[in-house]
Each structure stands twice: as C-alpha cells, then as structure tokens.
C-alpha cells in the first residue's frame, strides 16, 4: 500500500462525487464551445500563457503541500526579492543571473523548510515571519525604488518559440520534473509518506527533516523561476511585483485536488488546476464579464473542488 494507491479511489465508490465533478466540467465545456472565439489557436495560447507564471509556483507549492507542511504565505515576497536579484545581476550574463536567482529562491525557502522540518515550526506563522523579513529587507536594500537592469540580456526569456511564451515550456518541464520526482525518486515517495502521517514516518525512521527541506527547496526554485519571468516580463522590479502570487498558487493547487492535509495529490493535477482556472477566467472574459465576476467564480470553483475532494477522500476511508 503506497500513497499513490490511496489517491486512486475504488471505482465503485464514486457515484455522487464523480457526477459532482463531471457535470460542472461538461457544462463548462459546453459553455466554452459555444463562446465566440474560444476555439481558436490564439485563445489556446492566451490560456496557456496566463497560467504559466502562477502555474510554475503552484507546482512547487504542490510538493510542499503533499509533504504535509500545508502552505507558505511568503511566495510573493520571495518572488519579488528574486526578481530584484535577477535584474541587479544582469551584467554578469543571463546564465549567471538566472543561477543566482534560483540559488537565492532555493536558499530562502529551504531555510524555512529546515525550520519546519527539523524544529516542527508552524509553517504558516513561520512563513508570515519570513514574508515580513524578506519584504522588509527588500525595501531596505532597494530603498523602496524600482530596480532597473543595466543590460537587457533577459529579453531572450520573453521569446515565444513556436508561438508559445517560453514560460509555458518551463511550466511543462517543471511539471514533468516534479511528477517524476514524486513518482520515481525516493525523496518523492517519502514526501507522500511524511505528508500522510508525520509521526508514523518518523517512527519508521524516515528522514522527515531532510524530505521537508527538499520539498521546500524545490518550491523555492519554482518561486524563483516565476520571479525571473515576472522580472523579464515587467523589465523592472518594485516591492509589490509579487502581487497576489501567494494565494493564486495555493488556489491552483487546491483546484487540482491536492489535499491541504498532505499525503495525496500530484503535479499533473496542479497543472490541470492552473489551466482550469485560466480557462474559466478566459470564458468569462470572452463573454464580457468583469474582473470581479471572474474572481468570484474562481473562489466558488476553489470551494466546490475543496468540498468535493474532501467528500471523496473521507468516503473512501469509511
């Protein structure tokens, strides 16, 4: 019995909740198909492009959630500080700047993972503290003014090979890597076990601390990638660059059906969640609904999925 098996409930038990998932998806499909201009290549591109930035961070957040650390509330601030590092080091060359950015993101986030993993600190309190520390330090060092790059080596990252933004390819690559890590590596398998039951994992001699640090480090790399793309896209970085990244990423993970309690979920599901949110926003946009309605529907969607996933898993256990 592994955690992967428990993510696949037995087919006979699914009556109500399968219908509960299938009907809204069919309705969405029907509405989307009948929406003018939805079925076009340009629109498909737009959907993928808009899910890329949040999606990359969400993939990292998935690992942390599977490993049972719940959520981090410092993603926006981390992405911002990484973006500033990236732009400030442009003169060293693109590769060096990207590496510095990724290292910064991984270090800042893995440190939090270490405190959560080895000292069992509450991840929410800790990440709020980290958010304040990172945000405060960012304002301190940047003087509250935007950071502008000295050279524009990053323009390559705004490229659109084969018509899709580079960030979309990175999102797909990150998803694949995360999925392989979760399914095929020891660390990935251990993430499920630690998330399923931390005390049991420790009793069984699993390296709970190390597994947690690895999950958070991967999260940090993903946040850093988002930060790098945000920086390249906006070509300057202010202290508010990260925006609503923190909660948008959590929303994508939840819509993908990963449980906040840990132990189940997958990177592919999160990709699905991120794309689903983009599709719904896109349909509403094409049909002329305001931003407010788009956000409202996103919230209702998250709520519906959270409740459905919860009902499914608890019914599976009984």
């Amino acid at each position, binding site marked *: 019995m592994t955690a992967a098996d428990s993510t696949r409930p037995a087919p006979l038990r699914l009556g109500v909740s399968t219908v509960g998932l299938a009907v809204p998806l069919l309705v969405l499909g029907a509405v989307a198909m009948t929406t003018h201009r939805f079925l076009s290549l340009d629109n498909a591109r737009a959907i993928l492009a808009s899910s890329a930035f949040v999606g990359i961070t969400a993939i990292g957040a998935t690992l942390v959630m599977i490993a049972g650390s719940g959520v981090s509330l410092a993603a926006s601030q981390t992405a911002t500080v990484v973006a500033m590092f990236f732009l400030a080091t442009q003169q060293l060359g693109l590769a060096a700047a990207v590496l510095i950015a990724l290292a910064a993101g991984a270090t800042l986030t893995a440190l939090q993972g270490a405190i959560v993993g080895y000292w069992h600190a509450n991840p929410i*309190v800790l990440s709020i*503290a980290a958010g*304040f*520390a990172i*945000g405060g330090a960012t304002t301190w060092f940047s003087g509250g003014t935007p950071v502008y790059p000295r050279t524009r080596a990053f323009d390559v990252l705004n490229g659109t090979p084969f018509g899709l933004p580079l960030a979309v390819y990175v999102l797909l690559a990150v998803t694949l890597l995360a999925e392989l890590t979760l399914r095929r590596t020891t660390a990935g398998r251990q993430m499920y076990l630690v998330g399923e039951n931390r005390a049991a994992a420790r009793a069984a001699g699993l390296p709970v601390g190390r597994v947690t640090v690895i999950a958070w480090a991967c999260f940090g790399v993903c946040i850093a990638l988002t930060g790098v793309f945000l920086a390249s896209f906006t070509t300057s970085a202010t202290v508010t660059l990260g925006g609503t990244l923190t909660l948008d990423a959590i929303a994508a993970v939840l819509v993908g059906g990963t449980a906040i309690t840990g132990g189940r979920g997958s990177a592919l599901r999160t990709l699905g969640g991120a794309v689903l949110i983009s599709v719904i926003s896109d349909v509403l946009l094409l049909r002329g609904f305001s931003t407010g309605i788009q956000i409202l529907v996103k*919230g209702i969607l998250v709520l519906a999925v959270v409740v459905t996933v919860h009902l499914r898993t608890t019914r599976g256990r009984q």
Partner: protein
Amino acid sequence: MMRRWVARPEAVMPLVSILVVLGAFGCSPLLNGKPLQVFDVYNALQGFAQLGLLALAIGLTMIAGEFDLSVVGTYALGGMLAVQLGAKSPVLGVLAALGAGAAVGLVQGALIARLRIASMPVTLATYIALLGLTYAMSGGLSKSYPNSAATLWVDQSLGGVFSPRSLLTLTAFLIAAAVLGFTKLGRELRAIGSDRRASRVAGVRVDRRLIAVFTISGVLAALGGALLSYSYASANPDPGLQPLILAAVAALLGGVSLAGGRGAPLGVLAGALSVAVLAQIVAVTALPDFTTQLLYAALLAVIVAIESPGLRASLDRLRARHADG
C-alpha cells in the same frame, strides 16, 4: 521559573509584548527628542481600531483550532456594503454589513463543522469569492462615502485619546472576554481547539459552537470593515493580505496558538494593542517603513522559537549535555 513561563505562553506572551512595546513607546522621545503627545496615543488607538476587530475575529477561530482567512474578504465586503447602502443612514449601512458578515460566517461554519473539513482551504476559497464580489460591486474602484457627518462622528476625539471607533472595538473585546470568561463557552472553545473528538465525547456541542464562532467572526470582520470605510470616507475593494497578516500577528502575540486550544480575548487585546503601538512608534520616531516589517518578523521569530517543539527539545538536549560535561 523560566521553564514555567515558557510552559504558559498564553499568559506571558501578551503581557511581555504589551509591556515591552509600551516601554518602547514611552522611550521614543529619547530617539527623536520630541515629547509624546496625547495625539500620538489617539493615533495608536486608531490603529488599534483598524486592526482590533479583525484580530478578535481571527483570534476566536484560532482558539477553536481553525484559521479563518476569509475575514479579510468579509472586511472588504462589509466596508463596501456600508458605503454603498449607508449613504443616507450610516446605521443601515452597518446593519447591512453585519448581516452579510453573519451570513458568510454561518455558511462557512456550517460547511466546516458539518463536513469536518479543514477551514484553511474553505476560507481561502471564500476569501477569493468575497474579493470578487466586492470587486464586482464597485467595478474594481474605490467607492467614496459622501456622508461626512458619519465620518466625523466615528473619529471624533473622546477624552483626548479615544474615538467612538476605538471604544466600539474595545467594547467588543470586553464583551468577548466576559462571555468567554464567565460562561463555560471559553472552556468549550479551548476544548474544541485542543481535542475535538474528546470534546465531542465529553458532550460539547462542537458543530453548533463552531458555526457560532465563524458567524461571530464574520460579524466582527464586517463591523471592522464598515467602521474603517466610514473613517476613510471610502471603501477599497481590495485591501490586500496585509490586514489579515497583521490580525494574525496580533492574535499570535496575544498568546493564541495556530494549533488551537489556547488563548483568550484579553490576550488578543494586548496583542492588537502591541501591533498598533509598534506601528505608531515607527511613525513617531520617523523610522523608515520597512522597520515595522522587520520588527514584526523579529516578534514572530520569537513566537516560532517558543512554539517549536523540536527547537525546545534540542535546546533541552544541549543543556543536558552541558550539565553532563
């Protein structure tokens, strides 16, 4: 001695934090050379009014072992409703906000209690939905509030340091403290927060209490939002996460634990006052803005250190080794 203190953080933390912060507030003239004004105290209490009801709302849910992220959504919605419906009659606006807050809390509480589902994802979803609703109501723009009589009323100075807004906030805390202190509700909430199954077995009506806590949390958050938008004479459709985070910091400083089962309204009061006075110290001494963030980070680091079982265990091990060696 020290160990006993650390073992009862819910009593020590709020007391220490409020004393330290008030001490620093008293010493702030040493830094900027200007004596403290009565107006500075008034301002600190205004900051407390802005944050207090939200802190109480989130604090009550935390005592019961839940974490209500949606309070900041209710806060925004309450502010928007009060501004849009209370132009003629401010009381009507506040009542509309309170009704909406109660409805939101009731629905969430029922979902969380009956389905036994984790509150964090549910309230996150509600937060996003409420933000969207507020956005849709205002077209994404700030709405100004034309009733200047109400704006002047809520912020008028009473006795130099108070305003109706800060007094209302204080009253809410005192009522909550009295209700939780003098009835069995306080013990029940802490029981629900620390061991839900055991409290069910012991005959506590867990579901009802949870629904009530979320409803009250919604009402408090909506009231806070309504009073704030009367004070600003405008309602902001997206307050961001900052109010939520500060409210959580206030509750944590007040000795409430995110794990649940610990804390009391008077502690949260001390926590909210600490956060507000700290912001006022930074304003009075003209320190740069980021200092506030770094101070909050430092305070939370202390909380993380006190609350981490693993850290305490490793410190104990170190001390034991030291004693042996």
